[in-house]
């Protein structure tokens, strides 16, 4: 039986009727057309579907949309305002070649937002530990680490 949910995604309020078995990732992609959230494995392993639920990074393939009634979701679409106004983290990835095909990138960016809020100046080891939750088949990770380091510096400069 369908249930009506009301939630905020990137600050915009939505009201939709959903089947309980609808995964949050599919709700975002198919019902809201927010296809920036990618789906790789559907069992929590790859990290491509990572979004923020009330400002914490979570797997949207392991949450049902009904569970987000009344909650706040943030997806990669909410980060920067297009190529001219990228978020500092996106700028870091662009500058340092932190992506190739880009499939893993939205999940990595969304994982990084709360991580850098909690720890604005992470060591390389801490960055690699965080990245262990996101699989990238292209870059070999080295460039991602450098992108995170630059992104963190840019974020820091912005806020100071």
């Amino acid at each position, binding site marked *: *039986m369908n249930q009506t949910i009301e939630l905020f995604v990137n600050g915009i309020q939505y009201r939709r009727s959903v089947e309980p*078995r609808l*995964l949050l990732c599919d709700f975002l992609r198919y019902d809201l057309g927010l296809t920036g959230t990618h789906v790789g494995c559907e069992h929590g392993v790859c990290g491509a579907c990572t979004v923020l639920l009330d400002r*914490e*990074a*979570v797997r949207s393939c392991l949450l*049902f949309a009904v569970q987000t009634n009344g909650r706040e979701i943030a997806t990669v679409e909410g980060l920067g305002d297009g190529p001219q106004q990228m978020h500092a983290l996106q700028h870091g990835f662009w500058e340092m070649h932190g992506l190739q095909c880009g499939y893993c990138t939205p999940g990595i960016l969304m994982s990084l937002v709360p991580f850098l809020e909690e720890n604005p100046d992470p060591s390389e080891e801490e960055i690699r530990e*965080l990245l262990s939750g996101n699989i990238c088949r292209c870059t070999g990770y080295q460039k991602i680490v450098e992108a995170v380091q630059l992104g963190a510096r840019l974020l820091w400069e912005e806020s100071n």
Partner: protein
Amino acid sequence: MKPAAFDYHAPRTLEETLDLLAAYGEDAKPLAGGQSLVPTMNFRLAQPQALVDLNGIDELFFIREGERGLHCGGMTRQRAVERSGLARKAAPLLHETMPHIAHAQIRNRGTIGGSLAHADPAAELPAVAVALDASMYVRSVTDARWLPARDFYVGLFATAMEPGELLVEVAFPRPRPRSGWAFEEVARQHGNYAMCGAAAVVELSEKGAIEKARLVFLSVGEGPVAADQAAAMLVGERPTATVLRAAAEEAATKEIDPVGDIHAGPAYRRHLARVIGERVLTRATARANEAALM
């Protein structure tokens, strides 16, 4: 794939939850963090008729000191324990183990109760619960009981809970004087399920001999494996390197029953058990010595 259809219930109180679980019996599953349950539903390995979502039950989210030590509500997020200063002080072994469980993004949702109830033989928390002699508070509509962690685990992905029962709370006893603890594991990648891991607790007498020891393995049997013979060998002994190594050897050769998978064969897991067993006993003893000096 996508999960099969199910009835969804989001109760707000424990009473309501227990009523729902009683009404559905075997056909309902409690939904905690969903980090183990939803993957199996996505692959249709599980197709419960109903999910009873525990995420809206405020009374299941807590970390506090109580009669039995550190008490955690069943829905306490793994991440909350990791960030808890109280947990670090009152249950340091539990606290030290948290970062080994999956990744931060998984621990943000995954719960203490969900991991303990799921009883995955490769999970860290069941082994830690057994090593610490934790106790589980289990409730149903008609019954409420405390179970020692040892009696809670009864086999592969199996616990002593009956359909209709819920793991409401778990309590981890405070560290005893002159005691030390350690956890270690080996995984292919940080955050992956470990190929082998072990938790140890060592308690010394005033004269510096071992009074009590616990050595519990994960990923080498059907559930958490307590190496009781190895622990018994240690009691009364001075904790020399030779004695600790012999105990780990005993555990790794006689007390575990590892099976192979694509990550590691039985022989390699046995080797890991020997090495990790010795390391955790050594570190736990060093910490017990430090505690004895304080």
